[in-house]
């Protein structure tokens, strides 16, 4: 499965994502440049990585969402291609309106870096198929990760919440919500289910040496879906 990791000015988890899919999972993949209008040929999956695109100036993800490459990502998504936005990538996808809602300043008003647990809810996506109910431990590192949606009840009914912050035991509780997200939402998908965004960093949780390998589940899942004949 050929991964394209989009590199914006200020991306800083782009190499980490490449490391996870290429070095750890052994897949082909590389970087795509924000000024390009096309994704690399034969791209099977797009990762919009974490970091501080454009310094997070104005609003996290706002300027990157307007990059030339994002038109190609949008077209890829419309064809049903799997797209994963991680942290700043998630912010970029919401700013680009590929995902609903917005990611706003943490309730604590501080940057927070630590391991959290998320529970997989929706499994109608290529990144979560078969994972429903699993509790995964992954790091977060962000200052603007508080998910808000102008019509949360309606959004909840669409079943597009994929990940929620929970305790290690899998329970919803306020202490487990690191940024004050509405309904402890940590990750969501689009209507078709092929575009997924989340604040935690699965690519930082692919090796036990670094503390957790739970994040691999997302990548293994998309690989499985691909092997089984496509992701859409």
């Amino acid at each position: 499965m050929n991964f394209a990791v989009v590199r914006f000015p200020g991306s800083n988890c782009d190499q980490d994502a490449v490391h996870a899919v290429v070095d750890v999972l052994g897949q082909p993949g590389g970087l795509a440049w924000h000024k390009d209008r096309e994704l690399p040929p034969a791209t099977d999956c797009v990762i919009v990585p974490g970091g501080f695109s454009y310094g997070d100036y104005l609003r996290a993800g706002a300027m990157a969402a307007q990059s030339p490459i994002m038109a190609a990502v949008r077209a890829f998504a419309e064809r049903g291609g799997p797209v994963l936005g991680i942290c700043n990538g998630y912010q970029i996808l919401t700013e680009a309106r590929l995902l609903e809602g917005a990611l706003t300043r943490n309730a604590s008003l501080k940057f927070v870096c630590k391991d959290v647990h998320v529970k997989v809810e929706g499994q109608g996506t290529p990144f979560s198929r078969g994972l429903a109910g699993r509790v995964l431990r992954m790091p977060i590192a962000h200052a603007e990760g508080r998910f808000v949606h102008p019509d949360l009840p309606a959004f909840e009914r669409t079943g597009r919440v994929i990940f929620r912050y929970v305790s290690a035991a899998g329970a919803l509780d306020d202490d487990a919500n690191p940024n004050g997200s509405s309904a402890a939402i940590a990750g969501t998908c689009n209507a078709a289910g092929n575009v997924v965004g989340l604040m935690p960093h699965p690519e930082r949780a692919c090796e036990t040496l670094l503390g957790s390998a739970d994040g691999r589940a997302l990548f293994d899942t998309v690989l499985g879906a691909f092997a089984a004949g496509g992701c859409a």
Partner: protein
Amino acid sequence: MSAIARKTLIKRPQPEVTPQLAREHGLSAEEYQRVLGFLGRTPSYTELGIVSVMWSEHCSYKSSRIHLGKLPTRTTARTRVIQGPGENAGVIDIGDGQAAVFKMESHNHPSFVEPFQGAATGVGGILRDVFTMGARPIANLNSLRFGRPDHPRTRHLVDGVVAGIGHYGNCIGVPTVGGEVQFHAAYDGNILVNAFTLGLARADRIFLGTASGLGNPVLYVGSKTGRDGIHGASLLASSEFEAGKEGHRPRVQVGDPFTEKLLLEACLELMAVPDLLIGIQDMGAAGLTSSSVEMAARAGSGIELDLDQVPLREDGMVPYEVMLSESQERMLMVVARGREAEALAIFEKWDLDCAVIGRVTDSGRIVLRAHDTTYVDLPIEPLSEGAKYDRPRSRPTYLDELQAFDPRTLPTPADLAAALLAVLGSPTVASKEWVYRQYDHMVQDGTVIRPGAADAAVVRVVAPDGRQKGLALAVDCPSRLCYLDPYEGARLTVAECARNLVCVGAQPLAVTDCLNFGNPEKPEIMWQFVECVRGLSDMCRELDIPVVSGNVSLYNETDGKAIYPTPTVGIVGLIDDLTARPPLTQGFQRAGDAIVLLGLMTDELGGSEFLEVVHGKVAGAVPRLNEALELTVQRLTLDAARAGLLQSAHDLSEGGLAIGLAECCLTGPTPIGARIQAATPLRADHWLFSEGASRIVVTVRPDDLPRLAELASDLGAPALTLGTVGGSSLSVELGPAGGARAVVVDVPLADLGAAFHRGFARVAE
């Protein structure tokens, strides 16, 4: 068409230079005479500005240089030095064709004036020093000193400094993996912000700050030049603060980590093009002036700049301001003649401002022109040579009385558990989680040991053959000990920092330092400085590790009150194979493991945290450091770790054994208690809180105890079994050998946790 108008220099008559103006620029009468002498005429205003910053304490190290020469800086049996002090950062060989590049730097004054931006730009500056050498920065540390916790400004300063460090490192994507924070009234008027960066480079591709090759073009890259920080380096960092007197306050520099990230990627891309880049230096303190002069000086060449070409941010600037500006995120480089276009294309790709602003000459002079006028024509050598003083020094008289104090004259506190909790909860000792939560310590997918888990951080480095190596790094300075005894304190500093690395199973390789002191024109301060340098030198020699880079920050003094002498030390060490030998952490791992002390029990309470927190005293003789014992304890820990015998290891420092044990109880996978039973002639409070040097607490599985004992006796190292991991409290039972033992403390984990985890909030929230 662009709506942005290019800003240009203006032409304005320059003020006439007089001895009075020279004095206002910080030049002494003798220094000004020297200028007139080598120049044979009165300098122009711009020339005066240039000489004054080049000869400032900050740029010329005039008070410290003759002493720094004594530090051991060359390759040792243990460590191959690729680049020692004198360049932007130090470089050592870590095998496999790889090099570790690192340095530490202070940003003390700016952080006191504007904590967020001051600390942020401090991080930006040290990062540039490291990537200038051709290294990708892979980890940051910071060492911070604030005033007393209840000082009205402390909270604001803590909040701003931590947020600023986080802002810069998080945004640029370099993990901040550790550091230290201490509080004391000595820093009320002068906080310390020392930032450390470690980078990774190819050993055969190190870049230096040299302007060589006649006719090669000089490029300016990065942010535009504004009026930020003019006189930051020369006046502010080279004289004392006076409360309320802020006339010379330079315009605060604002950090732009986003631009620096672009600069970092673009520079590394440029460096990968064969033979394109000749030399590079960041524009740090004294900006364009020091970078151009230093680059020409190192190459023995000359340099000519056309200041009209410098990208400007503000209208109405004059050459003097351009040369003295300390705007951040700027680089000066020399590229191969005829290949400018290749370089420019890379910077354009990264949306960076870039301009050819001059060329390398062989004149031995720096010549600056703007609008057809020559503003500066100065010989390089006397500029870079600078001034050099052997300032008078004398031992402070108060030391006799301080050192004569005998802590044994104080009574044992009635409630030892309360004393333990008070020390554990003091902001200097308590958990720094509030701090490192705000730092991305995991970006770059290499953080193997995170902050809070061990005495040193460990980041992964993948060798070309795929082997996973670990670089361990720590910063340290028990400044109270340096105050009570600068020579011994500095030795203890190096020993403790090295011991921190050994505790994760890493072999210490090389040192960087950041020497923070008061006003060197006072003989007592100068004495502290020289004693500390002597202590550092001696201990580095004992441990066989060179000093490869460093920084000096003087005049940390307000209204005549100096900081504690604070020679912060950073050490980098190596774990050769992480897969074969995962690094150790400090927390107790499981019930039933045996707790063993490597080292000796002594009653050395002088300068201890306990004395200060419980008795309100900073006095006494500092712990004795026996270098042979230190080496044996370190050797034993490393050998035992390599043999796979150890389950955890923790260095004992502030708060002594009691605090070390409490930290081990609280920082493992889950909190767990310990049962300690020891025979000792010492008083209970001395046993608990003494800060004797060269001690490490380790745990081993009971089955492995005999092998550890054997290893210890082979090396002649003291190893004393103290007790067992388990239970839900830390209990300590003491008594004389052969006599009856009594429980001296038995503190529930919950109480320990509350003190440890809430102690810092007192200053932060």
